[in-house]
């Protein structure tokens, strides 16, 4: 019985090793693996940073001991200034989005400007996108309504192309089982070995 168990173990090992799917992937990967990691890192790298004007990811305030030191916050032209004009707390509350959606004009996300400038609701008679019939004057005096919330970049509008971040799952592991004929051949072969041993051990 022990010999049979060992034979079964060996059989499983041979079947797994001879899996054609494993061999195909293994050959492709062995070829690619001839490259060392540094070469592979160079292929995936976006390149060096180079000399350029950089925007700090930290706020404009740098606190040294008890002194608050203000630094000029340089914003290169062409970039959305609302992100850097907001307070650090508002910047921290902006949800992370893929880089390509940070630069979309705000009106493509939130509608025409009157929506953003009238948090209490669009005045009657004012249709978004249509010229106002009467002059729009700013409110006089301190604001009495709720605080204007910071403009937060949200999820992209429907129909926008999805960035290439589709999760990939590895292919499922397939277990290869032998054919019934293979089973029968193996069992018969082991039976024959056992029978021959019995015949030899019987006294003449």
């Amino acid at each position, binding site marked *: 019985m022990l010999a049979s168990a060992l034979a*079964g173990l060996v059989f499983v090992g041979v079947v797994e090793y001879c899996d054609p799917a494993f061999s195909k992937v293994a050959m492709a990967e062995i070829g690619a693996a001839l490259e*060392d990691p540094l070469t592979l890192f160079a292929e995936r790298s976006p390149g060096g940073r180079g000399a350029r004007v950089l925007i700090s*990811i930290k706020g404009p305030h*740098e606190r040294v001991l008890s002194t608050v030191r203000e630094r000029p916050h340089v914003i290169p032209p062409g970039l959305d200034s609302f992100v850097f004009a907001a307070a650090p707390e508002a910047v921290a509350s902006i949800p992370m989005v893929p880089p390509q959606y940070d630069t979309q004009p705000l009106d493509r996300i939130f509608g025409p400007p009157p929506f953003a400038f009238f948090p209490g609701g669009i005045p009657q008679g004012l249709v978004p996108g249509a010229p106002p019939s009467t002059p729009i004057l700013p409110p006089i005096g301190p604001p009495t309504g709720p605080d204007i919330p910071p403009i937060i970049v949200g999820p992209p509008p429907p129909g926008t192309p999805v960035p290439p971040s589709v999760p990939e799952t590895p292919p499922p592991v397939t277990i290869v089982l032998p054919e019934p004929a293979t089973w029968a051949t193996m069992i018969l072969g082991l039976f024959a070995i056992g029978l021959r041993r019995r015949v030899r051990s019987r006294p003449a």
Partner: protein
Amino acid sequence: MPSIVRSLVLITVGCLAGILLGLTLHKRAQSPAAPQAVTTLSILAPSSGVRIWYSAHNYSQLSLPGGRKEVVRSVLNITKPMHFGSFVWDEDRIPKGPVWVRIDLSRQLLSVFRSGHEIGSAVILYGMNRKPTPTGSFTILEKNPDYYSHSYDAPMPYMLRLTNDGVAIHGSNVREGRGSHGCIGIPLDFARLLFAAASKGDLVVILPA
């Protein structure tokens, strides 16, 4: 029961037991840890799989500062240049073990290794000229998932502190054209995964630009 039939039964039972045992061991060897949710990019070559495996007789090595070398058993199969804000994470079927992080400022890349297998890679932000990121070998001194820098009035989510003067790895809005005051900025989701995988005392190597 006749002896021949008994022998046949014993042989059959033995074969089945051996096959079941072999399949169980093989499955256990392939998936030592529970499958983890992965976020990958389509830049991974589908024909070759998620990662490139080095053969047991030909493990690769990476040189570290000070002459030390780390064995590399597999790397992620990323065939195209990565973008700012993108990352790859795959720890499926990678055994538990020591974790170390390799940061290459010249390539603006961060790689995470576990048991010699690369499980994550991301494009980074690092220190500007006035506040350069230090290079060399460091260890993770502190972990804080919700740290706020009072020196710079800025959040540092999933912070992994490297030095006592404020240099750390933390989540950030990684975009081209940005720099830090010495810290290593990584995408927020990647920072969450790295925070979960790394521990205090793990090695972090920063190579110069």
